[in-house]
């Protein structure tokens, strides 16, 4: 083995990498918030929406689940260019992740709604609660518990997926790493450090999620 590892220049860039890691987290979190909101809407449309809206929701979900995330990102990258729409790298990644999150979460939510028995609705309505009260106080809290774990997984997935940003010129953690690596040719060293940063980010998310779950769901 005649390769000499050079770690020092890489270590010196760790602050920059961590800052890029914050950008990764930011785009993942925003795409999750948007994804949860849209996903909930898609799930409700698929269950109760009028036919045309239901078909749109179904199409969204199936494309998100049955094509590569990179394809979805490319679509928001070059695909929209066909219509003269050019998004910034940040928006390409945000739109791509949101599209994907919403599609996957919609299926989780739908499963969650189906898992809460109809008899819960009857019981709540028999007490005089309105349909809205029944959803907000009785159904959604139970659905949230059912989808909590899949939602955590999707958050992890969003962090991992955001690394595709480097292929559309977005300087989140991976993009920043590639930028430094291509300047110094210390590709292995840079990506090794970045791999560890991703690992730590993922573990922190899982720990935080477990901690929150213990406080949120005591039953």
């Amino acid at each position, binding site marked *: 083995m005649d390769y000499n590892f050079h770690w020092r220049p890489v270590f010196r860039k760790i602050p920059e990498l961590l800052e890029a890691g914050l950008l990764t987290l930011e785009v993942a979190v925003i795409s999750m918030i948007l994804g949860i909101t849209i996903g909930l809407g898609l799930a409700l449309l698929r269950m109760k929406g009028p036919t045309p809206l239901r078909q749109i929701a179904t199409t969204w979900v199936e494309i998100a689940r049955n*094509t*590569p995330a990179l394809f979805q990102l490319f*679509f928001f990258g070059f695909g929209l260019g066909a219509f003269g729409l050019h998004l910034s790298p940040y928006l390409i990644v945000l739109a791509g992740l949101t599209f994907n999150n919403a599609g996957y979460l919609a299926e989780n939510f739908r499963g969650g709604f189906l898992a809460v028995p109809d008899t819960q609705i009857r019981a709540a309505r028999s007490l005089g609660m309105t349909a809205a009260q029944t959803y907000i106080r009785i159904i959604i809290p139970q659905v949230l518990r059912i989808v909590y774990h899949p939602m955590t997984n999707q958050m992890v997935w969003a962090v991992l997926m955001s690394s595709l940003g480097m292929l559309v010129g977005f300087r989140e953690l991976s993009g920043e790493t590639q930028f430094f690596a291509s300047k110094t040719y210390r*590709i*292995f060293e840079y990506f090794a450090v970045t791999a560890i940063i991703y690992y730590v980010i993922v573990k922190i998310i899982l720990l935080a999620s477990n901690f929150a779950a213990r406080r949120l769901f005591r039953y």
Partner: protein
Amino acid sequence: MSNSASFFTDFQATDLLFLGEAAGRTLGISLVSISIGTALGIFFGWSLQASKWFAQATIGTVLDAFRSVPLIIQLILFYNFFPIIGWKMGPFAAGAFVLSIYTAALVANVVRGGIEAVGEPMRRAARSLGMSYWQDLRYVVWPIGLRAVFPSWVGVALSVIKDSALVSVLGYMELLRASQILITRTQEPFIILACAGAFYFALSYPLSKYSQKLEESWTS
């Protein structure tokens, strides 16, 4: 657009062939990785289930790392690591290597869940009939577990086909990279992306619906 420059040319029939070949490469690297990864994953999953802490501390930790780092980072990392230790690996070999381990990490989880789904009481019943450990695995755990994990395994296989798109980062000419090149040349992003997307969709959608059906008919 045609009179703007000769550099850009319109989308042609030969381009479809080019995309088709690339789609074939996507399928090829996926099938290789799914096969190797499944074989490894079954072994890893069984070890994780059979041994309490040793396998968990070794195999478990490594596989967990593969699930916690973006695939694209793993690909770049290994592609640049192999020359360091003196292995000559092209994009296909390096890509298939990483995808296989990635697949194994996902399959191991599925398999462990499958063995656990068979449940202690049933295994005890099998042993009480005088079956050996291996007979129990072969005649009880395998058929029942297979049923329990098959739909999830289809899910893993489909996600590997989709994730194989990332091998493009090593320069491997699979479907999405071919699309990207064509887009640069023809400036027809929408049609080309639609073709690529349709290929993945046509592969993934029927299979995922099929496994969903199987799962529903088996659980009810």
